[in-house]
């Protein structure tokens, strides 16, 4: 029998998923952020995965061994160092934007960056990467035309558009308007003393190239602090948002990383809060995470409000009027409306678009309320009809049956609590919108 040796793996990425395979390609060990265990004297393969990118290396375990794994070079909308999409020209363009902010208010910042993908062939796409993009208030008023006014830098292999707008604290929306397509929007919350940094990639959508609202990156940095390509907190947030959107189980490691950062990164805090709710909702640290977020971002922040509701915080709000940034936050709000239908008040900015939520992750996107060709509500109706065509549940033997001889108009299809929760979650609509959809089925 061969000797056993101690294998220690230390990853530069705290949330890296580590898997060890033996020479028969069987998985023999797993860890997140690091691993320690004993294995027979043999050859092994270590695979390390961060934010969807996996790297591997073979090792010979002939004695106790420590393997230090460097940061995995994943693809990111942010020109971070140690990623496959790092780009000095893009980094410089973002820094220039940070040095010359546009002021339409004060106290908060919104950094908006749209990049053409770096690497490969030089980009030949015409126009600004931010074409069609504008910043609007939650009430729909125009704040800044990013597509037309953001500085474009084309000195690198691909162009980048970047702008820092100083604004009053509040909830804003990024709107994408393209010809012959419904306008789409997402939330950008400007918190007092913070700059919300939104990075997106320009992609092709049905023969048109536009910023991908649903798959960008969001991070928060203290107001006045310039963008830092080597910011490990932003890198951590990237990994955490990937984990949230892709159901990766790195929650404990992400929570540890947040604690090591003394809870000072609010975006990481929001992401860890949702990861905890998903994987270990009973964890005592959840309350601490939410408490720190209230201190850092305030209890008016819709994503913080969503976590307060989901964590049953005693100070949870009685109403949510604005759309949050994260889809997971919206899901938490929607779930609460099943028992608290008035949570999203009618005619509030959130209520007006809540029937048009798109199935995106990790960020919440929706078709704009005034989009002339909006059809999202019809698509949701089709899904609802499909669900309601299901076979009838087998009746329980001996169960009482009601007899109804009245001639009243047919009532909307009835759904039990579980059905309503399933539909609200899948469609991303609050209870009141679901009721409205059900009533339309009869018409």
């Amino acid at each position, binding site marked *: 029998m*061969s000797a056993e040796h101690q294998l220690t793996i230390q990853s530069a990425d705290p949330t890296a998923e580590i898997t060890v*395979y*033996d*020479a*028969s*390609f*069987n*998985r023999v060990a797993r860890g997140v952020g690091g691993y320690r265990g004993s294995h027979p*004297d*043999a*050859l*092994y*393969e270590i695979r390390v995965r961060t934010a969807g990118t996996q790297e591997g290396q*073979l*090792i*010979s375990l002939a004695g106790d061994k420590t393997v230090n794994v460097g940061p995995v070079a994943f693809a990111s909308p942010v020109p971070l160092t140690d990623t496959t999409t790092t780009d000095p020209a893009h980094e410089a363009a973002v820094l220039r934007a940070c040095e010359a902010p546009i002021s339409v208010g004060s106290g908060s910042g919104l950094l908006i960056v749209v990049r053409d993908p770096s690497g490969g062939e030089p980009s030949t796409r015409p126009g600004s990467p931010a074409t069609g993009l504008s910043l609007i208030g939650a009430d729909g008023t125009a704040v800044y035309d990013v597509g037309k006014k953001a500085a474009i830098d084309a000195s690198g292999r691909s162009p980048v558009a970047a702008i820092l707008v100083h604004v009053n604290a509040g909830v804003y929306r990024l709107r994408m308007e393209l010809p012959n397509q*419904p306008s789409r929007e997402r939330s950008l919350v400007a918190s007092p003393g913070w700059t919300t940094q939104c990075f997106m990639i320009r992609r092709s959508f049905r023969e048109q190239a536009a910023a991908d609202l*649903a798959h960008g990156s969001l991070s928060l940095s203290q107001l006045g602090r310039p963008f830092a390509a080597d910011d490990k907190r932003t890198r951590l947030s990237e990994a955490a948002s990937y984990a949230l*959107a*892709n*159901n990766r189980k790195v929650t404990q490691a992400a929570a540890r990383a947040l604690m090591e950062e003394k809870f000072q990164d609010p975006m990481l805090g929001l992401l860890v809060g949702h990861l905890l709710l998903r994987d270990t909702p009973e964890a005592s640290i959840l309350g601490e995470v939410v408490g720190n977020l209230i201190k850092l971002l305030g209890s008016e922040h819709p994503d913080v409000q969503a976590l307060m509701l989901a964590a049953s915080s005693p100070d949870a709000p009685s109403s949510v009027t604005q759309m949050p940034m994260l889809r997971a936050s919206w899901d938490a709000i929607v779930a609460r409306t099943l028992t608290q239908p008035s949570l999203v008040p009618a005619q509030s900015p959130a209520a007006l678009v809540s029937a048009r939520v*798109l*199935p*995106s*992750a990790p960020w919440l*996107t929706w*078709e704009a309320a005034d989009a002339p060709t909006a*059809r*999202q509500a*019809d*698509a*949701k109706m*089709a*899904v609802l009809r*499909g*669900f309601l*065509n*299901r*076979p009838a549940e*087998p009746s329980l033997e001996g169960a009482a049956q009601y007899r109804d001889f009245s001639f009243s108009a047919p009532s909307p299809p009835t759904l039990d609590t*579980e*059905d309503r929760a*399933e*539909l609200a*979650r*899948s*469609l*991303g609509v609050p209870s009141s919108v679901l009721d409205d959809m059900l009533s339309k089925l009869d018409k």
Partner: protein
Amino acid sequence: MPLPDYALCVGINRYPGLTPLQGAEADAQAFYDWVTSTGGVSQANAKLILSAQFSAGAQVANAKPASQEIWDFFETLRAAATANNANTTFGLTAGRRLYLFFSGHGFSPTVDASGVLMANAERDTPHNLSPKAWADRFYENGLLEEILLFQDACREQVSDVDVTPPYFKKSVMPGWRNRKRFYAFAAKSPLLAIEKPIAGIVRGVFSATLMAGLKGAARHPVTGEITETQLKSYLMANMSALMSSVELANDDYSQRPEVLDLDPFVIVPAASAAAAGATSFALPTSPATFPVRVAMSGSGAGAKIFDGARNLVGTSPSGVTEWNLELPLGFFELAVPGQDGKLFKVSGAHDSTGQPEVVHVG
């Protein structure tokens, strides 16, 4: 009596409201043939649903299979579970293993979700079913102990269509530790899965690779078993072998599947894998060894290769600048006197001509 295994194989070529496919039915038929023979599922417990089984003249809205035909099968599982609960000691469990195979048009609203379009789908009414959501629901409910899902469909990003949720209610049943899942998708979001003539028949590239693997090519040369790791490794290494250089150059086409090997388990036992027989196309069925080419520096005298368990598997001939040998799947170490050892892997990959890829060392 042990719990039975079940299989649902769905192939949809005919979409009156969309462009038709040519290979989806052949894919489903091939999987059905395998699962009811080597796979060990009795024909009574296996359902093959093809669009060709239904009327060709139907209007889009009435085209089949629609969700209803799939749900009918799921209802048989529910009925079996109910019967087991009443009449046996198994509890509310329908069977041991469920195979779900879907081939047709597909889409992906988010990276973690995907749907297969039913025959009655149109662009504005994208009737769909999410095999992964159903597989997850069966897993959560403990309706079966092992769920294997294979989905040969595009995962084009269509961000304005929600997937239809499963209507079985969620219930968290005990026994999580014993349950196992293996999901394999032809493409990860937002890539396209392709079909093409393979050995004279239009097939999905993913399905053709899958069948070659299940019929024995993915088995471990020593144990003879196809485990979740073996099948994943085989699919990841070999799907691109059935694609042309032009197809490989298209960034929108999926070259590697997305595989979620969530739990360790044996998918095909050794005896079954060995008896499966050959596929009719280029991928080999039982690769015992693969070519390795070692570039020798200096005289190369005394160079040795050891396998993953440190067993000596080869000694270089003297006076050669290139040492050619055949090795099985696994990890190896090249030891040359006076030099650091070099580690290398024989993954079992094939090139685009279907020939085993040469592993270059040194």
